[in-house]
């Protein structure tokens, strides 16, 4: 899903990207008119007014509970709930975002460590490879997210609440992509290169540190980007059944209970910004590590 040909993009792609984004926003505004027009006309009928086309458009972009809020409404809500509110306030999106982010990072950290350890075990043990690897792949076809509520409720009934159950779901979701990617990466060196290590009389550990580990880095970072996104999704879904206490998932659920569409969309954008920042952070980390390992371009 993530190609790393960022050299090819860069400045040259800025104009096309901006064009696509502008088109998306235009479609969004048009969609807001289409979806909110009925409600605006009904309101006008009740007040015995007839709306001209331009009035109708303005009405549809400024409703309290629109079916589809216009982009500027979401932007205003985002500004209100991040900058205007105190961070400690329960209505601050920064507070909810932090709740989600901390769980995501914990789950991602555990998941990545577990995934790498499992991949090393699979590459070095034939038994693990033969018996566990098929299950790791099969488990990808199972909708793990769907059992998130059960995990939350079950852990709750044995007295675990809040942070840990959500982190377990995030761990679970993020460790599979890392395992699969890392196994591929550790097996990336060709037979020729492995033979070369042997002729240099390299020990198993040296072969791992000098050849297998460096050549697995591109695979590792690609799967880490997928894993961090999966970890965020897992955390958000994990926040749903807890009764909408805190976190971006809770904001989504509360918004859908009370028909607060603007709140739903702003929570969605909060999640999108978090996802972007997390993937960006992994990308920066990747650049530092690859440069340190001597992959300088």
């Amino acid at each position: 899903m993530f190609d790393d040909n960022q050299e090819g993009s860069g400045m040259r792609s800025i104009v096309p990207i901006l064009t696509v984004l502008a088109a998306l926003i235009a479609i969004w505004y048009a969609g807001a008119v289409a979806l909110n027009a009925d409600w605006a006309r009904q309101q006008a009928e009740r007040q015995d007014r007839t709306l001209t086309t331009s009035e109708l458009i303005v009405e549809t972009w400024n409703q309290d509970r629109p079916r589809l809020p216009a982009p500027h409404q979401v932007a205003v809500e985002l500004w209100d709930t991040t900058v205007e509110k105190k961070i400690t306030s329960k209505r601050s999106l920064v507070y909810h975002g932090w709740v989600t982010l901390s769980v995501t990072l914990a789950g991602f950290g555990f998941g990545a460590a577990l995934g790498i350890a499992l991949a090393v075990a699979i590459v070095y043990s034939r038994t693990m490879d033969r018996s566990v690897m098929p299950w790791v792949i099969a488990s990808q076809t199972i909708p793990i997210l769907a059992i998130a509520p059960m995990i939350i409720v079950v852990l709750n009934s044995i007295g675990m609440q809040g942070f840990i159950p959500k982190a377990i779901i995030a761990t679970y979701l993020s460790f599979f992509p890392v395992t699969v990617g890392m196994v591929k990466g550790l097996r990336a060196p060709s037979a020729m290169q492995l033979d070369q290590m042997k002729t240099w009389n390299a020990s198993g550990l040296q072969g791992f540190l000098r050849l297998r580990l460096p050549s697995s880095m591109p695979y590792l970072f690609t799967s880490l980007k997928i894993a961090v996104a999966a970890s965020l999704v897992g955390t958000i879904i994990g926040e749903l059944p807890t009764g909408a206490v805190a976190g971006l998932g809770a904001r989504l659920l509360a918004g859908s209970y009370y028909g607060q569409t603007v709140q739903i969309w702003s929570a969605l954008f909060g999640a999108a910004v978090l996802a972007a920042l997390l993937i960006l952070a992994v990308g920066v980390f990747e650049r530092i590590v690859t440069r340190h390992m001597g992959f300088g371009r």
Partner: protein
Amino acid sequence: MSFAVIFAALMIWFGGWWMNARLARIRGGRGAGALAPILFGVTVLVLWELLVRGLGVPGAILPPPSAIGQAFAANLPTLWADFIQTFVKGALSGYVIGCSVAFAMALAVDRSDFLKRGLLPVGNFMAALPIIGMAPIFVMWFGFGWQSKAAVVAVMCFFPMLVNTVQGLAAADRMQADLMRTYAASPLQTLMKLKLPAAGPFIFNGLKICTTLALIGAIVAEFFGSPTLGMGFRISTQVGRLALDMVWAVILVAALAGSAFYGVVTLLERAATFWHPSQRGR
């Protein structure tokens, strides 16, 4: 009593592992390749059964596999209705809509280098977003029925499919494209004879990613509102009643459906891209 059971469970674990270690040493042989994971799975199931019974874990926390099997067998009609509602109506229709729209759009985008450069990064970014969060919005727009689930699934599948197809259509190398030009091939001929075949592995990669997303989207969307059937509805209501054997039975259905769906797409891939290096040499 319980110590004996735990001891037996440990023995079975080591026994299974030892047999797998022996199996792993036998090289080649198709039978041994399939046997090791099956043996591992059976070992885990027996271990689960014995530990849950031996430690007296209450059914409200983790039911033993035998209880899950009973719940599965006893509720077949309910589970079948849930399966039709969630998988066939919700996931499958959304999957077909999302993937075909993305495919058509990729074909259109492929003609313009400008659009390709703009759409690929945006699409890549969108594919990584928690799109599943749109579920409450779609439930609000399209109601509690399967239509809202299909919409969630369609949007979830759209971006991974779009990105993979666009990348695939660009996969044919320069030389081959030039060769098509020297043959005076029309754009349609180039598409049919060169670009689409070259894109095959990428397209199927997208289709495979989407199988998992489709099932997840359809089930999770039901958490935000559904008629009184469906796999997501069953999971959330039975969790509330702490009837976990039934929840696990639904998960079993989801796992079977998900694996079968993935398997079918893999078979299609093998039939369509049999010539590709990744499909040969096995």
